[in-house]
């Protein structure tokens, strides 16, 4: 009880919980869930973009895309390491991903069949991710908060690059402009749904906010995101596919239309465009790499033994 009081006091003071501190099991569990889901999203998120590296239409874009996907792998590594400070190994987390028990961001269950999707993913998906993540830089768990500081900086670079891809397309030929618009049409609503269900229907959110793992509600973050992208869309000259979208001077915010939450649930439960594809590719890479990891283990054991002798 004294430990719980100390923990609550740290939280109340906006101080950070560190790996060696005592913490309630439910707090630990919620953190592992959130951090590993975040890590999984980074590595699954490599797929739709990785698929375009070989076809990027200029060497500059190829380099930027390679760097971005590599960044995502790096973030995944970083987050798994941070989560390991809570006592769960990376292998355990990966097993949970591969068996379908653990989730990753549902946004990656959409397909990226067009080069313009590299723009939309950067601008909208990474944009929404940042809006979600910036508050996490102040997350109460130290390693997570510090990881997020680094990751957010890099992600905002990704968002900018996505925006630039779309800007180049919108300044290009008619075909390129159509490509950009078609892609944004597909990604707009799914990006808005990345903030999660409306607050009224989001049970996990409340506890996370009390523990200061989470700092703003889903709907607050979504509003902030819409307010951010509307002027950016104007600069691009791209139309956001929502007829109800307009400035509300009373609220000082943009109003926007209802989202199709049935579709959201559908994708979440596996009936998206790519769910089983993403998981199958991840599983295959892992299975095909088994002999390499085994060789590395065998070699490490052998050298450890010979060093002892």
């Amino acid at each position, binding site marked *: 009880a004294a430990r719980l009081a100390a923990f609550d006091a740290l939280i109340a003071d906006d101080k950070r919980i560190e790996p060696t501190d005592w913490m309630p099991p439910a707090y630990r569990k919620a953190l592992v869930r959130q951090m590993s889901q975040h890590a999984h999203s980074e590595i699954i998120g*490599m797929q739709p973009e990785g698929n375009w590296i*070989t076809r990027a239409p200029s060497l500059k*874009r190829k380099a930027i895309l*390679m760097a971005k996907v590599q960044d995502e792998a790096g973030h995944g590594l970083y987050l*798994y390491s941070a989560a390991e400070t809570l006592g769960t190994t990376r292998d355990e987390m990966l097993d949970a991903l591969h068996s379908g028990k653990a989730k990753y961001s549902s946004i990656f269950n959409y397909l990226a069949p067009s080069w313009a999707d590299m723009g939309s993913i950067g601008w909208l998906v990474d944009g929404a991710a940042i809006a979600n993540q910036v508050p996490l830089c102040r997350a109460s768990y130290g390693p997570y908060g510090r990881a997020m500081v680094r990751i957010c900086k890099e992600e905002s670079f990704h968002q900018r690059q996505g925006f630039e891809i779309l800007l180049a397309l919108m300044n290009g030929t008619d075909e390129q402009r159509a490509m950009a618009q078609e892609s944004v049409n597909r990604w707009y609503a799914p990006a808005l749904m990345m903030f999660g269900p409306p607050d009224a229907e989001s049970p996990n959110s409340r506890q996370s906010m009390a523990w200061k793992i989470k700092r703003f509600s889903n709907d607050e973050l979504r509003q902030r995101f819409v307010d951010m992208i509307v002027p950016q869309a104007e600069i691009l000259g791209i139309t956001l596919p929502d007829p109800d979208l307009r400035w509300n001077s009373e609220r000082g915010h943009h109003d926007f239309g209802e989202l199709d939450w049935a579709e959201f649930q559908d994708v979440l439960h596996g009936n998206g465009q790519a769910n089983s594809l993403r998981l199958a590719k991840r599983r295959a890479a892992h299975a095909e*790499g088994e002999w*390499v990891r085994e*060789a590395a283990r065998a070699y490490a054991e052998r050298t450890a033994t010979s060093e002892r002798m």
Partner: protein
Amino acid sequence: ADDVARYALGLGDDALVLAQRLGSWIASAPELEEDVALGNIALDTLGHARSLLTYAGSAWDQTEDDLAYFRDEADFRCRQIFERPNGDFACTIVRQLVVSAYFTALYRGLAESTDATLAAIAAKAVKEVAYHLDHASLWTVRLALGTEESRRRTLTGLEAVWPFVDELFAADPAADAVPDAAVAPAGLREPFDALVLPVLARAELEVPAAPALRGGGRLGVHSEALGPLLAEMQVLARRHPGAVW
């Protein structure tokens, strides 16, 4: 300048085609660390390609993208080892061992080039390829001495890659034309051997006996693997000629 450009073009094509191959490992590597590592190496290599192609193109008023996306197969000058499909991880690692050692020897020499631009590109690149060589050496030893299966795969990879090694040191008319600016390919054999043979020895691997293939990449003779690679690489750019990205 035209002669030097032709020389730079060959070197640039080597790096470009290799970067394209390495780029398709991403999100499929055997562990996350290797997704990062191979991505990093691909990116470095692409960087070398861009510097070299930009420099080559400057002599002909062409951009790096003109050269990368709008030349046909027979106009590419890459040596055939860079065209090799990735195969499994062991095959990629062995190819990396060979080409990183070659690049290390090459860029060391080229850093002394009388051509200031080439010397500058090489001076930067030499530090990066040293890392690539470390990475490949470490894995070669690990895989060769790991498990029975990893050793078998390493041997298969070595046998597949080695017949392309000699071509790296074969005559290159573009290099001969600019003896001061270029590094003579034949002269790279010794430093290459000095870098690679000790690694093979540590890995308890023998140099395969299979005879060398004829090569000819610098003359525009390519293996059958380059065509499909270029088809994929160039498809989008060619579908939108004149577009800016």
